[in-house]
């Protein structure tokens, strides 16, 4: 048996995947215990108990100042911004990508513009967004949209543009007009790719969200992390990071499953 052909069974594959995570957790606990043996007041690598205690305050007890459950308020605010940003980006990617991909004259007209916007680093635009939209929610959502939409548009348009020419010709011989080709040929075949593009945009979207929250916000996961950094509160930062990772994994998984369920034809060759 060679390594390149060794195909672990499903249950064993799962176990193999969990192993590195356990090793990482164990290594952390050993390192934290070692530091605490030298200095019981160490803040850099808090023990799990300290993290649980710090988080319990944020999760279960209302903040004395605002009366909010901070952890949930942060999560809700961040997810709302992320959802709004990704929602707008996805919708624009679908509409613009579809038109760009199906209609060559539009591609010639708007393609260079989309490319030009896509190569500008979004964080460089953040000050402009703050100046234009103020420090409220709009600027944060706008940063996510500006950050991920151009990539998604180009991805979807490219995918549609690469559909075999024969399909368009065939649709025309079946009596379709340009609108019909977009609606019944290009749109359905763009959907699985759109979900894939959205999935790949989750990472950058989180980066833009945390950046915007770090700079100007009064609530949000990124805001909290950067706030408690001033007190070296690793017992809050680390659980928050794990929570963000967990949210990202769940979103990724949900999108993969949705694509498989809704667009089974696109995954027919995968299993």
């Amino acid at each position: 048996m060679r390594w390149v052909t060794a195909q672990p069974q499903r249950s064993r594959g799962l176990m193999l995947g969990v192993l590195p995570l356990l090793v990482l957790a164990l290594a952390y606990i050993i390192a934290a215990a070692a530091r605490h043996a030298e200095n019981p007041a160490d803040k850099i690598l808090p023990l799990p108990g300290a993290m649980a205690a710090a988080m319990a305050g944020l999760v279960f007890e209302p903040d004395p100042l605002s009366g909010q459950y901070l952890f949930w308020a942060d999560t809700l605010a961040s997810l709302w911004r992320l959802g709004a940003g990704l929602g707008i980006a996805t919708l624009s990617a679908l509409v613009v990508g579809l038109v760009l991909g199906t209609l060559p004259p539009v591609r010639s007209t708007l393609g260079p513009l989309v490319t030009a916007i896509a190569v500008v680093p979004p964080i460089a635009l953040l000050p402009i967004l703050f100046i234009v939209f103020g420090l409220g929610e709009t600027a944060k959502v706008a940063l996510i949209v500006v950050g991920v939409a151009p990539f998604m548009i180009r991805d979807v348009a490219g995918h549609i543009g690469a559909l075999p020419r024969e399909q368009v010709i065939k649709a025309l011989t079946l009596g379709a007009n340009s609108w019909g080709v977009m609606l019944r040929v290009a749109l359905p075949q763009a959907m699985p790719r759109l979900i894939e593009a959205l999935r790949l945009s989750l990472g950058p979207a989180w980066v833009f969200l945390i950046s915007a929250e770090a700079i100007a916000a009064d609530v949000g996961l990124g805001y909290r992390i950067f706030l408690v950094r001033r007190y070296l509160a690793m017992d809050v930062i680390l659980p928050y990071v794990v929570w963000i990772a967990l949210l990202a994994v769940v979103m990724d998984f949900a999108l993969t499953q949705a694509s498989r369920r809704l667009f089974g034809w696109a995954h027919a060759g995968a299993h």
Partner: protein
Amino acid sequence: MLTLRNVWVEYGDKVVLERISLDIAKGSFVSIIGPSGAGKSSLLRLILGQEQPTRGRISLDGALLPEECGPDRGVVFQRYSVFPHLTVLGNVLLGLEFGASPFTARLFGSARRAARAEAEAMLEQVGLADSAQLYPAQMSGGMQQRLAIAQALIKRPRILLLDEPFGALDPGIRADMHTLITRLWREHGLTIIMVTHDIKEAFSLGTRVLTLDKRRHDPHAPHRYGAGVVYDLELTRKQAVSDETEAAEMAAGIAAAGITIDTVGNN
């Protein structure tokens, strides 16, 4: 029915087809053969409306051919003829839906039920009645081509164009497909124009075989002369097996006459 008068196709200064004049009768089965690069597919694309002639005119029943593809000319390509995101039934229904509703391209209620019955009847004819709910990716190449034929025929095209439709199939499947297309041609009274690499297929299926090749050759500027029709053979329609062998003999004859026909797919 279909008339080409002094048709030329040029890409820049490269001449692909020159002086093509043809009359194709209703109900004929025309096979087009010729070496790679002789413009077989270009000729098909002209008739399809995907490309326009540089010179000359093409008319269908006396009316000039519109400069775009339309439902009066159906097509089956070698590959990518069917839509991967639709089931077999959906693929056949699509033509009826495009025709009936230009805005939503969908049918509802009793109109949909009627279209569905029509589509199922068509699938029955090509032997895919039991596969109506499959997606193309779950089917073999032969089944996909059957579907492509059903999909094209549901629009009742005046002319059916086949671009190497059986080129990617196994020999056994190919024989089945020959039987199928011959039967459909007879039953529906179709007019078929087929481009092929297979000389035997061209003779056994066609009622007329056109051979495209360059009539003249300039060694210093080979691209300046285009291909024309060098052989135009009318075959009296064969009915029985004995004629198949006759066709094979004719094919051997034409091959011996020094025409090079490549058997390697070129597109």
